[in-house]
């Protein structure tokens, strides 16, 4: 059947209707685990596997707070390979390029099914080429929390990398040699997985303050190192020097100001890319000039937001995961740098998720189409290169959702008639800002009205597409393979799009 964004979904799956359709549904919760016994400390992974009686066909979950420096996913999945377990279902919140050992496990059928919110690197390429024997299901950050708490995604064992653990099994992310800051993505796993193993390299007597509550922790596995510190940082903390990026960022900040969105007590979220950081910097200038103090910024928090908190430009930061070491340090010392779980961040069924309180968000896109649907999951050939993360969650929650992108990336137009994959429904995307013009979603008549007569270069999105084709030429239509390799699951658990095997090679 055809769903609410015009995509084909197999009849046995629940199709996406609209982004606010969840309002008609009840929250579904399985019971939180009621642990009877004391937390047991072990220092050998083999022992953990034996005690938990880990067998083929089980589901294991992980978080990605250690990003490219994570050594826990590698270690656990290597053990899966060593024991030659079959039909394993993995549910890491993200998969990074460094998780290279997944390649053989997928190829050999040890790992056959995957739930994740984002994936990139060699495992992503292999899955794009159709090697995963089961299915890949891609969630949003808030949607993953919903899937876990509702029992749609049942976890046999959650392996939670945790920088410091105390004797009672309580865990924190801010201290220890592998400190990574908040542990927001691990909270649902902790509370709802059948068994929970914290994996740490630092044990202390007692933590006064902790993010992971030991009452849910069955085992603590103590090893030499859970991560490589240099890989934990997301990478980019620099503002773009690219003139096109700077032009887009400047235009974005000016537009936000014109729309009256940079006012006292406002709230915002951006990505951590170089152009997003430029937007933050321009917004900061406007705030200082007009003596504005914002209510909060949220997200993956970076140094630029930490500086604004410390300079009194924001009252609070809500942080689901720290993107750089300055954010890690700030979370450890600033009481207004507040941790949030993935559920508190973006779960549609949470009472007041942070995403719903956002005035505006500034996000990127790999592709955007004439209906404003955004793709950040696959590239133009269909290779998996990312995923929603919080994209669809905050696009829904924010009053104004802005996409910033150059019109052309290496000759590829970012505007398409139809995106390859729908990550975020166009009904939640309001404004596209490019270096050659701005397009407003026709659904946002209020924004169109406000911008009427302004000096901003406003076009219909179709006009921007034509302009692009004049520069690049019209790209040839490409066809995906028929084989469905997985699905995009919307945050409410309905199906937004199918992922298909690629037909092209790089």
């Amino acid at each position, binding site marked *: 059947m055809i769903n609410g964004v015009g995509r084909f979904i197999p009849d046995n799956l629940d199709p996406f209707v609209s982004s606010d359709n969840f309002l008609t549904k009840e929250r579904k919760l399985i019971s939180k685990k009621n642990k009877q016994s004391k937390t047991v400390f072990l220092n050998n992974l083999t022992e953990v596997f034996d005690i938990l009686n880990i067998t083929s066909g089980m589901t294991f979950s992980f978080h990605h707070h250690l990003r490219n420096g994570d050594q826990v996913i590698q270690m656990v999945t290597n053990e899966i390979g060593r024991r030659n377990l079959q039909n394993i279902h993995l549910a890491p919140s993200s998969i990074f390029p460094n998780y290279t050992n997944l390649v053989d496990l997928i190829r050999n059928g040890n790992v056959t099914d995957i739930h994740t919110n984002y994936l990139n690197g060699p495992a992503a390429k292999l899955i794009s080429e159709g090697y995963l024997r089961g299915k890949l299901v891609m969630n949003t950050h808030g949607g993953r929390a919903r899937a876990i708490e509702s029992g749609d995604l049942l976890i046999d064992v959650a392996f939670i990398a945790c920088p410091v653990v105390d004797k009672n099994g309580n865990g924190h992310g801010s201290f220890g040699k592998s400190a990574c800051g908040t542990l927001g993505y691990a909270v649902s796993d902790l509370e709802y997985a059948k068994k929970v193993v914290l994996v740490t390299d630092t044990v202390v007597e007692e933590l006064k303050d902790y993010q992971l509550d030991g009452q849910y922790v069955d085992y603590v596995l103590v090893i030499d190192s859970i991560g490589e510190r240099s890989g934990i940082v997301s990478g980019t903390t620099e503002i773009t020097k690219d003139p096109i990026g700077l032009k887009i960022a400047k235009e974005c900040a000016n537009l936000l100001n014109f729309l009256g969105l940079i006012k006292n007590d406002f709230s915002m979220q951006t990505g951590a890319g170089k152009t997003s950081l430029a937007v933050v910097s321009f917004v900061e200038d406007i705030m200082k000039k007009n003596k504005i103090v914002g209510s909060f910024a949220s997200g993956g928090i970076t140094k630029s937001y930490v500086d604004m908190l410390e300079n009194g430009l924001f009252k609070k930061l809500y942080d689901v995961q720290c993107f750089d070491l300055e954010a890690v340090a700030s979370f450890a010392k600033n009481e207004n740098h507040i941790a949030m779980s993935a559920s508190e961040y973006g779960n549609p069924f949470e009472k007041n998720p942070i995403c719903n309180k956002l005035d505006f968000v500034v996000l990127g896109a790999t592709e955007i189409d004439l209906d404003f649907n955004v793709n950040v999951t696959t590239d*133009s050939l269909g290779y998996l290169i990312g995923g929603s993360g919080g994209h669809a969650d905050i696009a829904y929650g924010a009053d104004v959702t802005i996409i910033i992108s150059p019109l052309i*990336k*290496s*000759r590829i137009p970012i505007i398409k008639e139809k995106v390859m994959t729908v990550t975020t429904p166009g009904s939640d995307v309001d404004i596209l800002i490019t270096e050659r013009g701005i397009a407003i979603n026709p659904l946002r008549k209020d924004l169109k009205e406000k911008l009427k007569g302004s000096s901003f270069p406003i076009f219909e999105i179709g006009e921007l597409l034509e302009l692009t084709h004049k*520069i690049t*030429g019209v790209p*040839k239509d*490409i066809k995906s393979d028929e084989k469905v390799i997985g699905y995009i699951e919307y945050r409410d658990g309905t199906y937004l799009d199918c992922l298909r095997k690629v037909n092209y090679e790089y």
Partner: protein
Amino acid sequence: MKGIAGSKESNDCLITIETSEKTKIEIQSIVGAFFYEQILKTIEDTLTENRIKNVLVKIEDRGALDYTIKSRLLTAIERMKEDV
């Protein structure tokens, strides 16, 4: 005789042209799935306009626009002529 121009930076291309028994064009492009024919046409047209025959043209393209491809090719042609 041989001439080279361009780079393998994003949005650019590296073009090598050398004398050959007959004209041959080899295209390697990250956007080949979308623009192979257009890249080929730009190269063929530029060769025809400049009455260049019997050359082997190799392009390693990183998403260059047509005018970039054309200018890189023209420079490579000039360099080939100077290469004796």
